[in-house]
């Protein structure tokens, strides 16, 4: 069963790096990239070119982006009853205490600060994969359809 992850990241290099590291660790992941907050919302609401977008099992969200930043995306997703159940992992280079607290207040499911070094970044992705993609029970659409 593929795991659909929406990565919201404006830096192309960062997006590619994450895609490479993650695909080495977990072959089941299908990574979709939105390059800013507006595109992320369009993806989640099947708008524009995203008519056939899957509902992601997980969102990886950068904070500082053009057009619409990550905190605004968080606020919108977590106040939308249809989208609020999708876990959001903030993944940012910001170590700011304000960003951390603000993210948790807006109901981010967890906050990860991206380390600058590649080795540490790889071990972060490994830890993320081990917890979120192998231990956590994510909401599954097929199960959900039967339950609602």
């Amino acid at each position, binding site marked *: 069963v593929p795991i659909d992850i929406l990565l919201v990241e404006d830096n192309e290099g960062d997006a590619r790096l994450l895609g490479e590291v993650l695909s080495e660790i977990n072959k089941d992941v299908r990574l979709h990239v939105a390059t800013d907050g507006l595109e992320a919302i369009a993806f989640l609401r099947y708008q524009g070119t995203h008519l056939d977008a899957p509902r992601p099992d997980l969102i990886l969200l950068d904070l500082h982006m053009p057009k619409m930043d990550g905190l605004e995306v968080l606020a919108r997703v977590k106040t939308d009853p249809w989208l609020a*159940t999708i*876990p959001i992992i903030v993944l940012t280079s910001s170590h700011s*205490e304000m960003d*951390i*607290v603000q993210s948790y207040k807006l109901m981010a499911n*967890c906050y990860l600060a991206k380390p600058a070094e590649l080795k540490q970044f790889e071990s972060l992705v490994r830890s993320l994969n081990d917890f979120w993609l192998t231990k956590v029970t*994510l909401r599954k659409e097929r*199960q*959900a359809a039967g339950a609602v």
Partner: protein
Amino acid sequence: VLARREIGEDAMAIQILLVEDSPGDVRLTKEAFREVDPSIQVNVANDGVEAMEFLRREGAYVHAPRPDFILLDLNMPKMDGREVLIRLKADPGLKTLPTFILTTSRDARDIIRSYELQANCYLCKPVELDAFEKLVRSINDFWLTTVELPRPNLNN
């Protein structure tokens, strides 16, 4: 990196609140965390009412520490896990506390409801001891060494 382990383990022991009514499961969870890191303090509340008293430092819990995260069972007497979640997430002082559902239930309705109520994640308790120990190890590796947890002094 500000991950929990790097901000002064000596000054502040890692505190977990386990909300669980089964004595066997409490013992098992405590042992698994001790195995991973003996300095982790596992505080126990036996039902939702006790959990809220602990978190609000009421009654016998005046000196209770603020936990780094909460492991919350769903089905318990007096006040169940869903009710605890609702109260936590409606309380400005407690809503940022990471709360993980840890239950034997695999019912899709329980899973969806927990995410609707903004549980940080949903964990099905494995029956096999070995798998349970791996789960505890993964919680430790991820939440205590990788994640940036909200700092208590900035929460209120």
